[in-house]
């Protein structure tokens, strides 16, 4: 008890020294305002938290707990039992997702759109980071390529929304392949830094090449259309607008609902695609490469094409996310594609559990919707994300939901 108190006291003292100058002495002009209470409060919290944790860890219950959490760090993969039981649940979730527009306001539907875009981005990054084990810190580049593919595709090639989805996807996949090729020989952290460099280069080029991309002012993006029917009150490009054609009263929410529906279908398709992919030889090769590259190469797996396929498929999914982002915003500019955005997507993947499709989807939805509900705490959002990333790595590096390996029962055996 005494040593625990002493230890917590030391920790609190260090915390006070750390927090003191930066949160207790606030700069205003060339002078300072003293907020003595803030560092004291934080040091107090650290003291209480540390004391509780130490005492808990020393009790017999705590010892068991820490042994169960920290003891089996690498045994994080469980084999999936069949999926029959899940079907009902999946059908229920799909039904709920499709009926959401019936009882949500337009604002909340646009939040749902944002959540689904993050689901796409997280699924894409999960292929690269979670399955293939390559840390990509420049994933936002492909998001940007998709968004700008739509915006500039309309401006220069006259592509509409429907053409932009495959165009953005292919363009992003192409970028993924081109950027991926030179970096494949690298491992781990070097790869992370190179992709970070690429991501920043693409953003800076978008920002500086004003004559082509519109520079920091961005580009306007045309609204999505329903098979050529516009969602505005009066059709700008001739023809009938959507509400006249179907003889319903005009509502500005139609466009949002439509976009939500299309996005939901795309997300479901891609989820299905990713889930199936994991069971295919390609998906298994990704995971095997993640675990041990040298062993894979000696077993005859072509590591270049395998990694390249992971990189460009992840990029493709990210590109689709970008197209929908552009369509929902009606406007893109480079400031939406900073490194910070990459870090957020990575946070989603990490918190969902790298490699776990369900976990990543849940994390993407929770992490987008939660800050909207807790509006007052919005400024603490990123701080909390960062803390959660650190804690996650210490406590459960494989994510909150344990990833499951696909399992194939052999016929005839029990």
């Amino acid at each position, binding site marked *: 008890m005494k040593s625990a108190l002493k230890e917590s006291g030391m920790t609190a003292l260090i915390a006070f020294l750390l927090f003191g100058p930066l*949160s207790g002495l606030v700069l205003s002009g060339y002078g300072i305002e003293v907020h003595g209470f803030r560092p004291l409060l934080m040091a107090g919290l650290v003291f209480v938290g540390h004391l509780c944790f130490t005492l808990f860890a020393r009790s017999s219950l705590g010892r068991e707990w820490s042994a169960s959490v920290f003891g089996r760090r690498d045994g994080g993969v469980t084999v999936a039992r069949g999926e029959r039981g899940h079907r009902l649940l999946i059908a229920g979730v799909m039904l709920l997702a499709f009926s959401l527009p019936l009882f949500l306001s337009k604002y909340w539907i646009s939040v749902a759109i944002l959540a689904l875009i993050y689901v796409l981005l997280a699924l894409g990054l999960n292929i690269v980071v979670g399955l293939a084990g390559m840390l990509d810190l420049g994933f936002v580049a492909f998001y940007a390529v998709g968004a700008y593919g739509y915006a500039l595709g309309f401006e220069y090639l006259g592509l509409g929304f429907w053409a932009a989805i495959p165009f953005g996807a292919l363009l992003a996949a192409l970028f993924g392949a081109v950027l991926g090729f030179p970096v494949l020989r690298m491992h781990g952290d070097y790869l992370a830094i190179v992709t970070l460099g690429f991501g920043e280069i693409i953003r800076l080029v978008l920002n500086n090449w004003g004559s082509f991309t519109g520079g920091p002012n961005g580009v306007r993006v045309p609204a999505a259309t329903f098979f050529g029917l516009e969602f505005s009150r009066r059709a700008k490009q001739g023809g009938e607008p959507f509400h006249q054609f179907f003889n319903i009263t005009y509502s500005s929410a139609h466009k949002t609902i439509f976009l939500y529906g299309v996005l939901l279908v795309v997300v479901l398709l891609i989820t299905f695609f990713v889930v199936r992919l994991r069971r295919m030889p390609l998906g298994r090769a990704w995971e095997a490469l993640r675990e041990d590259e040298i062993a894979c190469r000696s077993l005859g797996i072509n590591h270049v094409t395998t990694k390249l396929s992971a990189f460009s498929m992840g990029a493709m999914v990210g590109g689709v996310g970008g197209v929908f982002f552009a369509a929902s915003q009606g406007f893109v500019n480079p400031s939406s594609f900073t490194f910070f955005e990459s870090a957020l997507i990575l946070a989603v993947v990490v918190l969902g559990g790298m490699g776990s499709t369900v976990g990543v989807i849940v994390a993407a939805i929770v992490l987008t919707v939660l800050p909207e509900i807790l509006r007052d705490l919005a400024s603490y959002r990123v*701080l909390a994300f*960062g803390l959660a990333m650190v804690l996650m790595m210490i406590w459960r590096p494989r994510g909150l939901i344990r990833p499951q390996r696909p399992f194939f029962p052999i016929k005839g055996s029990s």
Partner: protein
Amino acid sequence: MDLIIFVQQLINGLVLGSIYGLIAVGYTMVYGIIGMINFAHGEIYMISAYLTAVFLALLATLGIQSVPLVLLLVLLLTTLFTALYGWSIERVAYRPLRSSTRLAPLISAIGMTLVLQNYVRLGQGAKSQGVPPLIEGHFRLFLTGSDQFVQITYIQCLIIVAALLGMSLLTYLMQKTTLGRSCRATQQDRIMAGLLGVNTDRIISTVFVLGSAMAAIAGVLVSLNYGSFDFHIGFVTGIKAFTAAVLGGIGSLPGAMLGGLILGLSESFFSGFVNTDYKDVFAFSILVLVLIFKPSGLLGVPEVEKV
């Protein structure tokens, strides 16, 4: 080529390179000893800039006027507190991950980056902050027979001198003292060093403290030189300093300084003679190209992959 612009960019490049070098030391030492990229190191530099402003204001409130005293105190206090930050980050975010997978510390470091940036944003506000000019004045070298001149401010001189001093002190520490020998031993083989009685955890902490202290020196001097900063500055400067570390050969101390100088000079000449808008693109391209074609850098040892 215009001689005046050339010499001016040479000086600017040397100053910039010294700063990159000072920050790169932190990256290179940490990578050398535990093989991880301390992504949060750029934020350490950002924190030291804020601490500089806070301590300057504090000393002004306490009524200390003498410029050398203020400079010395600010340098000392900022270095101490920044080093404490470096130590705590290692203790909280990296040490528990010592036996984890290779990507875990890097992800933890990215989390730490978000934490530090937003902590400073919440604590000190999002708007950019500044420090009052402490040392004013400059040398001017005139070209004979014209009124064109090359200018170097006192602070710029101070930056170059401080970088040289800091680096020689660090080199001495690493090469001649017991602490340095333990550091080098841990770098070569952590397990063996531990078996021979080196407290490797303490050595790793020391390395974080030393790296942060160097970044703090850079932070103080840059704040005094440019006068203003915000909570974003850590990211780009951090990446560039990392580029310098990679360019010089990551893990090598003289390499960090050399890489810093090369990067600073080439960036300075690029923005002076080619294009200012694309100078960051230029620096990032160097990073990408070096990592692709010569990941071991100029003075580094190539990494051998063992099965």
